């Protein structure tokens, strides 16, 4: 937790972009994929994701753990969806092409498979941009970027302060929990639930009280240096938008607009139906 998000300074097209253009790009791609159920549009975003990863120079093996979690989650969701509603695809697309049947209820259709694969592609297409944003943007730029796209500066500064004190609170949590373990507290499944809850409570109570102690000191320090004097503030970590930045913003917003257009004019809805 010493370094948040494992952010590493590097010199690549993606790293060199302003935080704000990356934030806009990330949001544009996220909204695009959230909106549409058209695999062709999602496919375009996925190709972009792969290309951006290439350009950023980030290696996939650095993300092994994250990818493992994601594939687990996606698989679980795939199975759960089928268990809970195997006929959902048929109702969505209005046709039925049976692939194979396990029982009468659990019949896999082309429609169900297509729906579930579309959904997986939706997850798969959004996650890379989130990762890219956090891996290539200096945490200091978050707050300034959020303020720049219109969030109130107090909200933006709250995020910045959260990131500032997160590592401190994490290491405090560790040492407190170890010291309590030395007294005999355990965080394991061995005890009955009631006792377990009590022990967890004793483990985190000192952490909460000492966190409350911090609040006064920090807010004094901020008041003493004129925080919230005006209704806005400037930021050390902002840069003028470069030509690349403007291109990225225009490009990603265009894609979002394109997917809106596809939704309205081509698909007449969020779904693309290849079965009709």
């Amino acid at each position, binding site marked *: 937790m010493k370094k948040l998000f494992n952010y590493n300074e590097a010199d690549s097209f993606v790293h060199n972009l302003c935080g704000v253009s990356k934030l806009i790009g990330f949001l544009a791609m996220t909204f695009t994929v959230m909106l549409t159920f058209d695999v062709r549009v999602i496919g375009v975003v996925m190709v972009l994701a792969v290309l951006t990863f290439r350009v950023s120079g980030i290696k996939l093996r650095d993300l092994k753990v994250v990818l493992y*979690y994601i594939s687990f989650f996606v698989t679980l969701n795939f199975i759960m969806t089928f268990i809970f509603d195997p006929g959902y695809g048929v109702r969505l697309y209005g046709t039925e092409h049976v692939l194979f049947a396990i029982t009468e209820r659990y019949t896999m259709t082309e429609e169900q498979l297509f729906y579930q694969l579309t959904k997986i592609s*939706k997850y798969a297409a959004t*996650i890379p941009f989130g990762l890219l944003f956090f891996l290539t943007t200096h945490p200091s730029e978050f707050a300034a970027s959020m303020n720049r796209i219109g969030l109130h500066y107090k909200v933006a500064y709250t995020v910045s302060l959260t990131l500032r004190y*997160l590592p401190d*609170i994490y290491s405090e*949590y560790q040492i407190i929990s170890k010291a309590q373990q030395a007294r005999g507290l355990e965080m394991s499944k061995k005890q009955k639930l009631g006792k377990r809850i009590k022990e967890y409570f004793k483990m985190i109570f000192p952490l909460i009280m000492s966190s409350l102690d911090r609040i006064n000191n920090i807010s004094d320090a901020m008041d003493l240096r004129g925080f919230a004097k005006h209704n806005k503030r400037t930021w050390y970590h902002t840069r003028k938008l470069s030509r690349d930045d403007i291109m990225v913003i225009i490009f990603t917003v265009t894609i979002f607009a394109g997917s809106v257009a596809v939704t309205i004019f081509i698909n007449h809805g969020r779904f693309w139906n290849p079965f009709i």
Partner: protein
Amino acid sequence: MFKFNTRTLVATAIGAALFTVLFMYVKIPSPVANTEFHTAYAIGSFFAVVFGPISGFLIAFIGHALSDTFLWGSAWWSWVIASGVAGFLFGLAKKWIDSESGVFGLKEILIFNAVQAVSHLIAWVIVAPLLDILIYSEPVNLVFAQGFVAFISSAIATGVFGTLLLLAYSKTRTKEGSLE
């Protein structure tokens, strides 16, 4: 109740950092397989009652988004928003509970738990499933089943932990008015 001065801002940031740490590391295994009690919501409810709904919303929203990002690389927005809604609603309890006074009796416990249970209900049985359907077009019965499990486990965790926290906190308050 809705003011957001420097102290509230700092409390929110610290609360969000605590929420993140607890969300990621302090989950109590429950007797039912594959479900856990998130102590983080108790922290969220505690801060919301002390510092108000805006603080509660931001703590849960930022905390949930950050821990999702650390764990998965990306936030699961529908549930992050639901968390924020729950945080906001917890804060409405501030209207009836004056945490600084050191009074936290049976009446306050009941109010707190009623508010937190309803908040979780709205967040997990209404907001989260609807957003899941809207964004990911998930099957209706799946998202409501998930939402219901989340509602029960979160409400229990918040009820037990949040009540304990507010009780312990109110005990530290009683003394301060009468310092020599």
